[in-house]
């Protein structure tokens, strides 16, 4: 079985971002970039399926700037076999619909049995690409997955939904988007990082894939959220209860 995993290069989750001085976007200069945490979980799941003998080949694809090679290498170091970079200009970011269209083309070229991806990227927080790609490729979708079980024809997926869990059985090929609890990704070992440098990465572009990547929305401004005003400190439970009753009037 062959698995395609898509990964995204994003600002590291430990970095606190701020708007640009002219509020035209987010200031990304000189920030630490990483593999999107949800994508990392998707890669880890693919590698575990390979270790169980269910999967033979793992192909990693990223749609991003030249620098996204670093994130493809990171996925190769976890255990993926080869990479594909769908290269875009470094000052443009494709919107989820265009990314989904690129993935559809890569899917048709590679013909994988299963596609694993993160449920959302921690920059745009859209939570869309997997569902859109599944729609365009006419595939079933198992979003927000916390548990998978794969056999040669089907995948059974447990989804994290409001109020509990939902279990679905999907016919392969299928699209799975990972939630946080699917697994805990391993750290890549130094030998694996060295080995990953020798693994092949092919390059293509949205244009070569015949994808219309024109933006569908524009960013008017990016701002900090309004600050909540700091309140008062109370010194005792009695004072707290008095305030909640007489001042806030919530009890």
């Amino acid at each position: 079985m062959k698995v395609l995993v898509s990964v995204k290069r994003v600002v590291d989750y430990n970095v606190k971002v701020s708007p640009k001085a002219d509020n035209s976007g987010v200031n990304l200069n000189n920030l630490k970039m990483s593999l999107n945490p949800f994508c990392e979980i998707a890669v880890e799941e693919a590698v575990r399926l390979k270790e169980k003998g269910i999967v033979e080949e793992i192909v990693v694809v990223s749609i991003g700037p030249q620098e996204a090679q670093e994130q493809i290498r990171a996925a190769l170091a976890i255990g993926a076999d080869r990479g594909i970079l769908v290269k875009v200009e470094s000052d443009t970011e494709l919107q989820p619909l265009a990314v989904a269209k690129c993935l559809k083309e890569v899917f048709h070229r590679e013909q994988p049995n299963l596609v694993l991806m993160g449920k959302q990227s921690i920059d745009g927080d859209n939570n869309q690409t997997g569902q859109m790609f599944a729609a365009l490729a006419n595939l079933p979708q198992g979003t927000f997955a916390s548990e998978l079980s794969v056999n040669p024809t089907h995948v059974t997926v447990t989804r994290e939904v409001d109020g509990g869990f939902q279990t679905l059985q999907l016919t392969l090929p299928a699209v799975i988007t990972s939630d946080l609890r699917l697994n805990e990704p391993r750290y890549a070992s130094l030998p694996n990082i060295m080995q990953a440098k020798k693994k092949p990465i092919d390059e293509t572009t949205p244009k070569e894939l015949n994808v219309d990547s024109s933006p569908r929305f524009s960013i008017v401004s990016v701002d900090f959220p309004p600050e909540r005003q700091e309140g008062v400190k109370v010194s005792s439970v009695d004072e707290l209860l008095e305030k909640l009753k007489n001042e806030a009037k919530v009890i």
Partner: protein
Amino acid sequence: MNVLVIAEHDNNEIKGSTIHAIAAAYQLGGSVDLLVAGLNCSTAATNGAKIEGIAKVLLADSQPYENQLAENIAPLIQQISNKYSYILMAATTTGKNIIPRAAALADAQPISDVISIVNKDTFKRPIYAGNVIATIQSNDKIKFMTVRATAFESVLKESSPTAIEVIEKSFDLGKSEFIKNDTVFSERPELTSARVIISGGRGMLNEKNFKLLENLADKFGGAVGASRAAVDSGFAPNDMQVGQTGKIVAPDLYIAVGISGAIQHLAGMKESKIIVAINKDPEAPIFKAADYGLVADLFDVIPELVEKLVV
């Protein structure tokens, strides 16, 4: 400029989150229709038809729509979408599962987690875990959106029932099968609709101590939540998580107990009307967001609160 809201329901009642989405739809103007898709859901459609301001209810009652599988609902939405300028759902796990799939079929770029409608094509939404807010202008002809329920206040009123139009066409991708739901049963209200929420963080030290918070929540008839740190430490199940990666809540009263106040937690609760923070670390960032802060050991304070509280 007509709006279609996709309802979530339990075959009988329209869910509260959908009522909030309808409130957002009214801000967009135009006439607002409600799609009720499912199996044996005509009671939900009848109840939807009584919501004040709804122009008409579209009822798609067919086996493939049972459990609201995105694979089957999305083509239904796409088929009727050209009559509308906006397609809305609440930004619940169901809405996030369905709307992007329907949008892609209609070649539209959806807008997730809308918290404010600026004008007919401009919307605000949080990005980077709520660290910044983006204002975006969409140039799609049909705008598919999920809206954050807590950002749109609903005043649900009943009126005399409007028309229900039945959609006979049924779509079935035939590639996904529902197996089961494991609903976490609780006597307490759901986090997203509770008037009072008591949340615990890493300061709770273990799972057993969450019982203290349950005692307090019971006095309020409230819900119990948890921070991501508490969930990751195994003190509480994930469906209790409040924050950017969990549930977004906005109760009248939110009491954060032993929670430091990481940005990702604040993103999930800072719209609460009154926030109380109880933490023994006076430097904890949660105090910056709290209306009332009490620097004290939670293991002294919570039992005292339970004892003294008269609701």
